[in-house]
């Protein structure tokens, strides 16, 4: 069964190591701007949450892509963008209800989390263990569902 990324905002300190390692792993450059994971921090309340693609079962990005440049990796379950096939219509970035795929002018590609091919760098480098990569078993899935249920209105609004 696929493994999934699980984020625990309560553990996140907002250090942004994940952003740096993500951009470095994918581009060889330390540039949080082009990271596929982004940490949003609410200074006043001291709360940070890493936001990253959840690899939807029915993925809007993949459905909308006119040229099939986004495909599911059957081993990891990640929706992956094949840059050489992308024609740059940016439709996927508009379609994703969660804002998890972006176009970057710096490298002229659309990018999203690809689970690093099954060994996510953010998970390995996060110093506080706020991101984990776990088997998608009944337990982790129901946790995720419970989490999603709390944001039912959000998801209904957007999905």
């Amino acid at each position: 069964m696929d493994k999934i990324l699980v984020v625990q905002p309560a553990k996140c300190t907002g250090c942004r190591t994940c952003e740096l390692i993500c951009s470095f792993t994918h581009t060889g450059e330390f540039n949080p701007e082009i990271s596929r994971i982004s940490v949003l921090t609410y200074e006043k309340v001291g709360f940070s949450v890493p936001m990253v693609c959840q690899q939807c079962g029915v993925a809007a990005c993949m459905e909308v892509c006119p040229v099939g440049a986004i495909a599911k990796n059957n081993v990891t379950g990640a929706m992956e963008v094949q840059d050489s096939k992308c024609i740059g219509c940016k439709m996927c970035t508009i379609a994703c209800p969660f804002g998890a795929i972006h176009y970057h002018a710096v490298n002229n590609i659309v990018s999203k989390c690809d689970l690093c091919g099954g060994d996510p760098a953010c998970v390995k480098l996060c110093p506080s263990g706020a991101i984990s990569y776990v088997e998608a078993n009944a337990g982790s899935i129901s946790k995720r569902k419970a989490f999603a249920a709390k944001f039912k209105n959000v998801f209904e609004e957007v999905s």
Partner: protein
Amino acid sequence: MKIRIDQQEIDVNPGETILEAARQNGINIPTLCYHEAFGGQGMCRMCMVEVKTAHSTNLVASCTYPINEVIEVHTSTPVIEKARRTIIALLYRTAPQSEFMKKLYQEYKCVENQLEINENERCILCRLCVRACEEIGSSAISAILRGTEKRISTPFDEASTVCIGCAACANICPTGAIELSQTPAGRTIWNRTFAVVTCQRCGQAFATREQLDYIAQHTGIKGSESKLCDDCRKKNLAAQIEQYAQ
């Protein structure tokens, strides 16, 4: 089936093109009108290679040549290099305003030719834009007129009724030939100005109405009705998580 490309023996599936077989095996053949999203078009001839069969030796466009028999391929010979230089020199004459062609012209150490120069042109008629638009399903542009007047445009240069303003054409164009302007007033491309949908949170224009319709049609996801740009959709969700966590 086994064939040889530049002395390297490689395994191919019958019907595969020479270009695909070469690239899969790390052999680079230069191309201009080929794109992985749609395959070869055989327009530019930049991908020309020499093919030896049991009976003959020919120069062929590798992006459209299907491998159906045992062949020997050479991707770089003096004849091929000369042909490529000629192609680039001619295209640079037709599109002297293109930085992309200028670079290639210098890289390939091309020599002057007598072709009439097309002062303000950037387009090399590779048709990648036409193919991209076809994939979107709009087919708003094509090659119009003939001979030296041939160029890419909408029928009769009129504002297209089928264009959705996605600008994939401008993005895929290797030479930057397609004019696109985006102002708060709208996005203008191919003689049409589209009203843009602006993000309710940050005010940035992020799509045309037509793009949102396209997304709704293709995904059935109401989210494309969202009035937020991709960044703000993420921020919005994060803000809700923060609210909940408190």
